[in-house]
C-alpha cells in the first residue's frame, strides 16, 4: 500500500510538470522540412536563465526518481525500452548497469541535428595522434532511447533470443575486461563501455541475426559466420565454433582482445583506437594499413570502401560525432533511399544500444 502511495505521488509530480519535461531541448518547428529540430540546450553558449532553472529542476526530479527507485525496488528497474518510450524524460539503462538520462527521438518527426558539442569524435583537421584525444563529457544527455530487438521466431537465433543475454554476458565476462580499452565519452555525454563496443560490432556485422527463422546461418560472401561474422580460419585460431551462437560471441570478444592489445591498433588511443579497432575487425588486425591514422585511412582510395564505411558505422553506433566530411561519406556510401544521414545515425545508435537489453 505504502509503495503504491509513493508511486502515485511521483506520478502526480510528473503530471504537473509535464510541459517542462520536454524543455531540456528546444523544439524548433520552423525547419525547412517542417520537422521538429532537437537542439541541445546544455551547450554553454546556448544556456539561458530559464534553461539553467530547468536543469536545476530536472536534477531535483532525477534525485526524487532515484529515491523512488531505491524504495520501490523491483518495479522501476525492470523498465525496458518499451517502457522508456513512454517516458518523456526517462532513465535509460546503460551498458554497465548504471543509468543515464535520455529521451526518445522518434523517426519521422524529429531530426537529430547533432548540435551537441563534439566530445570524442575525430576532428577532420586534427592529426592522427591527436585525433583520438578524449575531451570532457557534456553534462546532460540527449541520447535517443534504445530499440529492443524483436523476439526470435521459428529456428531463429538473434539478439532477441531468450538465451542471448546470458551468452552476451558470458562472452563479455570472459574477455572484455582484458581489452586495453580507451576512455571515451560520446556526443551524448555517455562513457563508451566495452559492452557498448560488443553491441556495435554485433549490429554492424549481422544486425543481430545469427540464424534466420529457417535456421540458416548468417553467412557473408567471403564465408564469415554468425553474430560477429567470424571467418572460419579466424574461428579456428580462436578455438571456437562460429556456428554456435554463444561461442561466436566469445570468439568475437576474444578476437577484439587481440585487436585492442596487440598489433598496430594497440598503439593508438582514444576514439581513434575505437574506430581503427573496428576497421581492424573488418579488414584484419595485422594488415600493414592498420598503422594509418583514421583520418588518412578514411580518405585512402586504396583501402576497401567497406572497411572505411565500417569505421563510420562504428562511430554512428557508439554515438560519436561525425565530422562534416564523414557525413558526406556516409551519404555517399551508406544512406539508402528513404533515409537521411541523421536517420541512419539514429537507427544505428538506437539499435546498437538495444542489443541484449
Amino acid at each position, binding site marked *: 500500500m505504502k509503495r503504491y502511495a509513493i508511486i502515485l505521488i511521483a506520478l502526480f509530480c510528473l503530471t504537473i510538470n509535464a510541459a517542462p519535461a520536454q524543455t531540456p531541448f528546444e523544439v524548433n518547428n520552423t525547419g525547412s522540412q517542417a520537422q521538429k529540430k532537437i537542439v541541445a540546450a546544455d551547450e554553454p553558449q546556448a544556456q539561458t536563465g530559464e534553461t539553467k532553472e530547468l536543469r536545476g529542476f530536472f536534477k531535483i526530479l532525477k534525485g526524487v526518481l532515484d529515491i523512488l527507485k531505491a524504495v520501490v525496488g523491483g518495479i522501476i528497474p525492470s523498465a525496458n525500452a518499451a517502457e522508456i518510450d513512454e517516458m518523456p524524460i526517462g532513465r535509460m539503462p546503460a551498458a554497465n548497469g548504471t543509468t543515464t538520462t535520455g529521451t526518445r527521438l522518434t523517426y519521422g518527426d524529429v531530426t537529430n541535428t547533432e548540435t551537441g558539442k563534439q566530445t570524442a569524435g575525430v576532428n577532420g583537421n586534427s592529426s592522427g595522434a591527436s585525433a583520438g584525444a578524449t575531451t570532457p563529457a557534456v553534462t546532460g544527455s540527449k541520447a535517443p532511447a534504445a530499440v529492443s530487438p524483436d523476439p526470435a521466431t521459428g529456428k531463429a537465433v538473434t539478439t532477441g533470443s531468450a538465451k542471448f543475454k546470458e551468452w552476451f554476458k558470458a562472452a563479455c565476462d570472459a574477455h572484455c575486461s582484458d581489452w586495453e580499452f580507451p576512455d571515451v565519452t560520446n556526443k551524448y555525454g555517455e562513457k563508451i563501455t566495452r559492452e557498448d563496443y560488443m553491441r556495435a560490432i554485433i549490429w554492424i556485422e549481422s544486425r543481430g541475426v545469427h540464424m534466420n527463422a529457417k535456421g540458416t546461418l548468417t553467412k557473408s560472401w567471403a564465408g564469415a559466420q554468425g553474430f560477429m561474422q567470424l571467418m572460419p580460419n579466424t574461428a579456428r585460431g*580462436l578455438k571456437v565454433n562460429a556456428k554456435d551462437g554463444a561461442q561466436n560471441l566469445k570468439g568475437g570478444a576474444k578476437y577484439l582482445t587481440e585487436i585492442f592489445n596487440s598489433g598496430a591498433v594497440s598503439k593508438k588511443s582514444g576514439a581513434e583506437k575505437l574506430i581503427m579497432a573496428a576497421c581492424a575487425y573488418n579488414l584484419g588486425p595485422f594488415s600493414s594499413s592498420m598503422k594509418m591514422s583514421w583520418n588518412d585511412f578514411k580518405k585512402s582510395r586504396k583501402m576497401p570502401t567497406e572497411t572505411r564505411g*565500417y569505421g563510420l558505422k562504428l562511430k554512428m553506433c557508439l554515438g560519436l560525432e561525425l565530422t562534416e566530411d564523414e557525413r558526406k561519406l556516409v551519404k555517399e556510401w551508406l544512406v539508402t533511399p528513404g533515409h537521411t544521414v541523421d536517420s541512419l545515425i539514429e537507427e544505428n545508435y538506437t539499435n546498437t544500444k538495444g542489443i541484449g537489453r
Partner: protein
Amino acid sequence: MKYSSIVRITLAMIALSGVVFVSSDSSTASSLFEQSDVSVSDRGRIVLERRQAADSIARMDRIIIENGSDTAELFASEGRAIEQVLEEDLDLDGEKELLIQMDLGGSGGFKEFALLHNKGGKYTPIWEETGFCAGNAMIADRDGDGRPNIYIEYANTEVKPTREETAIFTLENGEVKKAE
C-alpha cells in the same frame, strides 16, 4: 609400446605425408611449424614456413632461402597468414619474382598481396595491395603478349549485388601498375 616409440612413429607419418614439423626455440611462437618448398634452384631452396604464435591468432609465417647451411629470411608475414606463394618472372629479366598472398582474418574476408622483385638474387619488396574480398591470385599470360600478368579474382562487395571481378596488374620498370 613405449611412449617415445609412438611419438617417433607419429612424427615419421607426418613427415611422410609431405608436411614437416620442426622444433623451434622461439619463446613467442608455438613449438611446431610447417614447412613447404616454394622452389629449388642452384641459388638455393625457397621455403615457406607457417607458424602460429603462442596464445594468439597472429601468424608468424615467413619465406626463407636456404643454401647449404646458410639461411636468409626473404619475407615475414607479421601476423598475417600466408596462403600461397607464386614464383614467376614477371618483367622478363630472367629472374623470378615472388608473389605472396596473405589472409588477413577480418570479417570482410580481405586479402593482402605483396611482390618481391628479384634482381640478381636479391629480393626487394616493391608492392603491397590490400583489399579484394575472398581474393585469389594467379599469374598467367592471358592476353598472349608474351608477358605474364598478376590476376586477382575477387568478390566486389562495393557494388550491389556483389559480383565476381578480376583485377589485373603488370610489372614494368620495377613498378607494379593496375591495368584499366
